[in-house]
């Protein structure tokens, strides 16, 4: 059996190496190592490709495509970046709640997306912001929305030999944003529910109101269409309707499990709260039109 550790220095070299689809990719390693531990000796990967040497995958910059985040940007990179704090501070806020400092120092945005845990904290944020992922394999690049990229519990459209290269995030200039996470403890907690909302107004009138919920369905739930009515009616009843719609959609996708006893009422409350809080941040009062 062939055994090799691949530490290419350029993306092209790496894509070449992994083209046969046989290599195990390691970015931060925080998810992979836990999986490795569960494997029998015979199951352990023998060909590993390390992404950590490729400079190109670490960039954080703003272009006409928006905020560009390389796949191996860590959560700490995100929270420390002045550029991110200036353009999309909610990304830094959400990243701060992920895991622990040790996990944030090593865990990568691309690695997390590829892992596709339903409880991932950044996932609903990407869906909210309508971010895209850039995927490359030898000889092909494709760009998909994160919503299209994530297809189910721990599953994505990634093909063998294909890599997440970067995330492209629209800037949503002028928008107010809010992120929440509920875990059983205040650090190193897997989200039992998370979500994010954004609001843009023009002269007191809502032009954009989006909401995405995570940890309730296999992939993040985009409820932005359900929020459209808020542009003209921000009454308590309107908020309740959206909250109930949120539950209806979750149940439609995931059914009503044992955890629903807590999750459904909590989610109803949280979706309402998310909207109230983001509207407050945007200077709007929820009872007026």
């Amino acid at each position: 059996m062939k055994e090799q550790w691949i530490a290419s220095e350029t993306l092209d070299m790496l894509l070449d190496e992994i083209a046969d689809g046989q290599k195990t990719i390691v970015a931060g390693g925080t998810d992979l190592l836990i999986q490795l531990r569960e494997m029998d000796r015979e199951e352990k990967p023998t060909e590993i490709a390390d992404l950590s040497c490729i400079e190109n995958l670490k960039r954080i910059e703003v272009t006409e495509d928006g905020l560009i985040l390389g796949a191996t940007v860590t959560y700490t990179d995100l929270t420390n970046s002045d550029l991110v704090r200036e353009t999309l501070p909610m990304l830094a806020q959400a990243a701060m709640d992920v895991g622990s400092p040790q996990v944030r120092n090593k865990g990568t945005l691309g690695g997390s997306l590829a892992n596709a845990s339903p409880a991932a904290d950044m996932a609903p944020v990407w869906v909210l912001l309508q971010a895209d992922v850039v995927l490359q394999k030898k000889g092909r690049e494709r760009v998909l929305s994160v919503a299209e990229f994530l297809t189910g519990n721990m599953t994505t459209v990634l093909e063998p030999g294909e890599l997440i290269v970067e995330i492209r995030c629209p800037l949503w200039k002028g928008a107010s944003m809010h992120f929440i996470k509920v875990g059983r403890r205040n650090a190193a907690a897997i989200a039992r529910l998370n979500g994010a909302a954004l609001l843009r107004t023009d002269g007191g009138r809502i032009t954009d109101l989006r909401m995405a919920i995570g940890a309730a369905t296999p992939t993040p739930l985009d409820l932005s269409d359900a929020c459209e009515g808020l542009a003209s009616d921000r009454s308590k009843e309107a908020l309740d309707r959206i909250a109930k719609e949120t539950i209806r959609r979750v149940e439609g996708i995931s059914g009503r499990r044992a955890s629903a006893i807590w999750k459904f009422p909590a989610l109803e409350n949280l979706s309402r709260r998310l909207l109230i809080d983001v509207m407050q941040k945007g200077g709007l009062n929820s009872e007026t039109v």
Partner: protein
Amino acid sequence: MFKEIPRVDIQAKLTGGAKYADDMVFPRMVYGAMVRCSIAHGDILSIDAEEALKREDVLRVITYDDIPGIAGKAKERPVLVKERVRFIGDGIAIVVATSQQAAREAAAKVAVTYKELPAVFNPAEAIEDKQPAIHGVSNLEKVISMRHGDMEQGWNQAEVIIEEDVSTHRVQHAAIEPESAVALWQGDHIEVYCPPKSPFNVRRVISETLGLRINKVRLITSTVGGSFGGKDYDMSLLGSRVALIARLTGRPAKMTYNREEAITEGTKRHPYRMHYKIGAKKDGTLTGLQVDVLSDAGAYLSKSAMVGWRSCVESSGPYLIPNVHTDVTVAYTNQIYSDSLRGFGSPQVDYGIEVVMDKLAVRLDMDPLALRRKNALKDGDEHATGQILSGVSIGHCLDALEESSDYLETRKRITQFNQEQNGPLRRGFGIAALHRGEALGAGGEGIDTAGVNVHIEKDGSVLIYCGLSEVGQGCQTMMVRIVSEMLGLKPERCRVSRLDTDYVPDSGPTVASRGTVIAGNATVMAVEIIKEKIRNTLAQQKWFKKNAELIYEDEKIRLKNNPEVEVSFEEAVKLTFSNCDNLYGNGWWAAPKLVWNWEKGQGDAYFNYVYGACGCEVEVDLDTGKTKIIRFLAVHDVGTALNIEEVYGQICGGVAMGIGYSLMEEVKLRDGRIQNTNLDSYLLPTAMDIGSIEPVILQEHSAIGPLGAKGLGEPVTSIVAPAITNAISDALGTQILELPADLEHVLAASMREEQE
């Protein structure tokens, strides 16, 4: 107030030099891994180790038949089972290989077949008729009772009676160091390095397993990475297992459990289902209490009866109640067995009485603190055990709680906060009061004695030998404090010898927060003997005045009435040795004998009680059921703080553990199988979960402790949970009567309250 001294073992721990068992390596060392049973109840039909033995790096597979001595006593978990398995986790075989990894991989390949027997997981069902008996003929091991006064009268005198079901859940020690042990066969005796809570118990079990006399087993403690009541019988088994490997292979042997194994096999706190009936007059005076407890002992006995006894004795809380009727039923189930866990039966019944008291306060429309004060024990009162108490400081603890929490203001502030809220947050303040029996008591836990030897070396330096395990609680520092205080020496002169059972006297188990009192007193005695010898030496000096009193201070000894006459400590030591005498002191202290009448359920249960009171401010999010600890005030009367900084740390640690118990820890079992076997799903509080912990240390001198000190390790965690859930109840306006008060329970309670 004593001058601060740093922990004596701190340097090694800070530099990474402290050796825990898994850090130890010997040449040609081999490693063991367990094959554990995968069914809850049944008999082994066959063990097939062929796949495992095929590996080059596997030396052998050890089973019951290889045990030279006895594998285990009746009702106790065996080192390896012979045939009958009683819970998922019982040990079946040990695979020995040249690396830990290889041993574990090979162990996974050992195939065991069983004849399954019906299993029972619910203790209430387990004690019904026709249930599969786990030991003997019935799963009801024992009922422990307390009977005080006349219950008829108690109910007749009551103007208000409430009845409630209260329950607590299964949690674990979760010491950060997983269990590990190393053994070497030395030709005529076995040497075992391990982190035991009760080194002499472990030594005894190893001797029984190997069929050796006790003096052929030498146990040397490695640095203990936390115990909290664990690493007790678990360590007896692990120690025996590595001893077996070493004996049978002739090579140094190590076995370290990974976290999943530590969780699967390590003992747990007894879950209790309790029923309370409490009667009071309208002015709050308690007239009667009936407590019924069902304790889930799991699959083996260990100390479940003793735990149940302590629960029984303490079930009435720190209150004067003239009529009390308590029964604690200990039942077996086919699950991981329950054993000592910090508190040893106190946390559960403290939870029960304290949440019921709050419910009663609501019913009486009385302030919870006022209700406690109304009924709090005082000197001369008769405890529910019939014992007349002295040195009762619960009143002072409640005073200190009121003051430090600015009680009335805090309640006002919180009420206002809640009224002004238009969001989902609500605050609450909850209190709880504590009394806890000190040391082992009359409940059959063992003979409460300790031996400490103090040796003054020829240069005036000091070696202290004690059989108590330093599990992090600072007992070594405590003994250094006592010796240095009594002899007027700088603490740096003293060193505590490593615990090696070949050299230290049997000081009993490191449990029940008994260390300070029992071993402390033994230390005092040892030093008294040394002082007597010094006196005899100095009495022969020309300048000595007959019957003079000696003062030991600043490393000198002087005459009290002629302070200009002095001799240095070193000089006195030299004189003694040149006088053909020695300065070795053997201290042996036995706790006062106590008598408990099992039939009547009355007696002198403990020679002393310790007291405390706690208050907690929480903020609850009604949207999600999430509780945030704002601040936790912990008032504890420690007698004399021998090392106040260590007291502070013990209190904070105990509170943090209680926060975990209340809000986020839970061992989840399904059909006898633990579902959450690592720390990603068994959640311990992090630094961001504990809020502001504020210890308030009272020092009401104890009559019996060394230099007036009292035990501390367990009182500090026993009433944290009720203080927290009483605070949540205050915030919600409805009582939480079960643990854990996690997201699900709190949101459900909040929704129920809203509907009503």
